């Protein structure tokens, strides 16, 4: 019971997206803005990646030549690779190539970086995709179970286990799983290396352990965020209104809470998918899985710059696209924007 409040009932906090919409931007323009912004961000990321890789200590020529590194030999290689040109020029020609789908050639084995990336990206996306397919529905379901039984035993067990999972780094979880399932039970295969010509069933059987590792890593965070997003909505006055209409608990959650929890939950899922794609790097190395992450790590050790830069750009693009999708979904989920005054 509060006494008189001077604010009129129609005054509610206005999210910035809504304010932009009121300023005359239509929904379409709002979405277009996000896409444009994402593109600009990608360009900025490409500069950072190029500059960052350039700034790495050591260079390819001396690593490649090892003991035979005479100043003359190094200079020859640098000239051959075009390293004597100024950095801005090299950046622009790199970016121009990528715009035409050409990621350049690897310095160490003279293969096309693009071909390698696409092949290995497919492998990585298989790994991340299977993990996401398992983790997302499981996280949503567990999150709702936790809300339904909040502060009771199922909720506490879920909370405790997810806290434990969050606290462990992915490589450690990976080694634990190998120790348990492969060494002690002899149930799963290690290393999880897939080859060309393997059937899908065979591939899936091979990647059981890395998928499990990834699921454990992202599940906990997603589940906790789902729980808190729904809890937040559940404590709002309109849920009380629904309760005072005599609706059942399930109907309240499904019809009154869920539509308002879409935006925060989608944001969390998108962030975790991005984390999944990046987390794949470590997991691939642990399980010797021929994905883009392992490709990148191998390239870093020999300073194979076109490969490192190409992989870095792909990771950045995935991250930006996933976040952009989350942004757009939460704009679309807002009834104020779909149905302006």
């Amino acid at each position, binding site marked *: *019971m*509060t*006494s*008189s*409040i*001077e*604010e*009129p*009932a*129609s*005054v*509610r906090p206005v999210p910035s997206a809504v304010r932009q919409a009121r300023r005359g931007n239509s929904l379409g323009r709002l979405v277009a803005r996000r896409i444009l912004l994402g593109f600009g961000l990608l360009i900025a990321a490409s500069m950072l990646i190029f500059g960052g890789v350039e700034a790495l200590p050591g260079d390819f020529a001396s690593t490649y030549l090892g003991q035979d590194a005479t100043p003359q030999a190094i200079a020859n290689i640098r000239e051959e690779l075009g390293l004597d040109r100024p950095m801005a020029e090299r950046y622009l020609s790199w970016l121009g190539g990528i715009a035409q789908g050409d990621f350049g050639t690897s310095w160490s084995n003279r293969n096309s970086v693009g071909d390698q990336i696409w092949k290995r990206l497919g492998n990585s996306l298989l790994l991340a995709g299977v993990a996401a397919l398992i983790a997302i529905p499981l996280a949503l379901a567990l999150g709702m179970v936790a809300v339904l039984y909040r502060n009771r035993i199922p909720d506490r067990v879920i909370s405790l286990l997810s806290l434990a999972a969050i606290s462990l780094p992915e490589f450690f979880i990976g080694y634990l799983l190998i120790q348990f399932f492969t060494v002690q039970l002899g149930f799963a295969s290690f290393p999880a290396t897939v080859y060309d010509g393997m059937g899908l069933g065979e591939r899936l059987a091979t990647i059981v352990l890395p998928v499990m590792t990834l699921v454990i890593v992202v599940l906990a965070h997603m589940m906790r965020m789902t729980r808190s997003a729904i809890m937040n909505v559940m404590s*709002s*006055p*309109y849920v*009380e*209104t*629904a*309760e*005072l*209409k*005599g*609706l*059942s608990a399930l*109907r309240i959650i499904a*019809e*009154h809470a869920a*539509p*308002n929890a879409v935006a925060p939950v989608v944001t969390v899922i998108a962030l975790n998918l991005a984390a999944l794609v990046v987390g794949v790097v470590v997991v691939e190395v642990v399980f010797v899985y021929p994905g883009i992450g392992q490709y990148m790590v191998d390239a870093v050790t020999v300073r194979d710059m076109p490969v490192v830069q190409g992989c870095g750009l792909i990771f950045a693009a995935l991250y930006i696209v996933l976040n952009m999708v989350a942004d757009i979904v939460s704009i679309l989920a807002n*009834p*104020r924007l779909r*149905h302006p*005054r």
Partner: protein
Amino acid sequence: MPEMLSVKNLRIEVTARQTDGSATNLVLVDDVSFDVGKGRVLGLIGESGAGKSTIGLSALAYGRGGVRIESGQILLDGQDIARLGLRGIRAVRGARVAYVAQSAAAAFNPAHKLGRQVIEASIRHGIMTRAEATKRAAYLFGILGLPDPDTFGERFPHQVSGGQLQRAMTAMALCANPELIVFDEPTTALDVTTQIEVLAAIKHAIVETQTAALYITHDLAVVAQISDDIMVLRHGKTVEYGSTRQIIEAPRADYTRALVSIRQTTRQEARPSDDAQLRVDGMTAGYSAMDVLHDVSLVLPRGQTLAVVGESGSGKSTLARVITGLLPPKAGTVSFSGAALPPARKDRSREQLRRIQMIYQMADTAMNPRQKIRDIVGRPLTLYFGMRGTAKTERVKELLDQIEMGPQFLDRFPAELSGGQKQRVAIARALAAKPELILCDEPTSALDPLVAEGILKLLLRLQAETAVSYLFITHDIAIVRAIADRVAVMHRGKVVREGVKSAVLSPPFDDYTDLLLRSVPEMEIGWLERVLDGRRAVPQVPGAAIELERS
């Protein structure tokens, strides 16, 4: 005749867990009994914490945050709903008893259309088919005076005004044809001119549908218009229970008498004076391209009180921001004691800043919760007068004395004070600077009526003692009568009427002031009908009519 709702010896408790882990039982409602018959309205009135909403929600067998019905009976048409299981309770809620919340804006789900939410309970309880419920909703929208009743339900909550939402919420409660409706402060969050429309709509709908109703409010003048009986509550106990006429015209309990007489204080205005403390000339101000204030001119004589009255969005608070220099105006001047003030705060000298102080509506948010009262009140002493040590402590004690609080409050934190005490500390902090003008921005509107009255009396006493001038921003005409010497009525960023109080508040009126004055509920039975009849006779103010729709 069997009563629709009969509450007998109701006792409601909540278990509060202390920080040390021990649990204590708090009694929220203690031994409360009342009856409401078909087509009758019982008003529940009291200050915050009196247990009004708790009683109202108990009629739906609902308790917020672990509140439980400890003993007593809640008989709905002879059946004790407090003893029903969850399934039985759900069959009652929304179907036989419905609830109208204070803030309809928060109580409607933003994701669904209004129509769908209005008919939901009727359909889920199997009372009507979708077609029947939709038809009834349109009928209810019509009698509640909502625009385009047949298509109103197609809109989303954010697409209609606050007053319309509150009426839609009433339609939602009425839709399933319940035997009882609980109205929980349904007009508190609205402007007075909107409140009167909603009140009239609610009253009309109750008469039409012959439902029983509980009407919860802290405003006795409002409840006098709508209820047949009134129960006055305090600290969860019944203070007085009787017919509306008896409570308003012949209150028995001291507490009720205090509530009834509260709005009847008026102050003799001071004589007009040419010695202007503050003068605002031709001021236009606003944010980016939007102007909030248009060509505003005001005069506040030294040692007097100028009340600036208007509804939300009329530009009152923006005016205060311009005077303090927080928002430099686009045109016009502010002069203080005859000399022009620099428009921006950063260009004013410390001495100029010292002479104008401010008190806010929410004393809570205007104080650092991590500072003790001695630091909050002492800070301006150090800043403006360089006081430290014992001298400073002595002066803080003096100030606490002036606001009728003792030295035992020196080392308390704001969270340990009541709402009224916090506002008093805010006043002491303003006084510490020895200001010549204090801008008071709705300093009492978040407080309970009796506490608010105490604050007003304190402000008047301090003015008599120190000759400080007040610019008092409010939306409440009763406060204007109680404290002002001069009055400025604001509407949509313009001053529509300004002058000494007696002239501003007497006819002939301009259209807006007339509407505003006639919309303020008076502690008089039959006031609402009288005003509504009068309104139909006089042509509507065009500007005000738009305000009602869109505010």
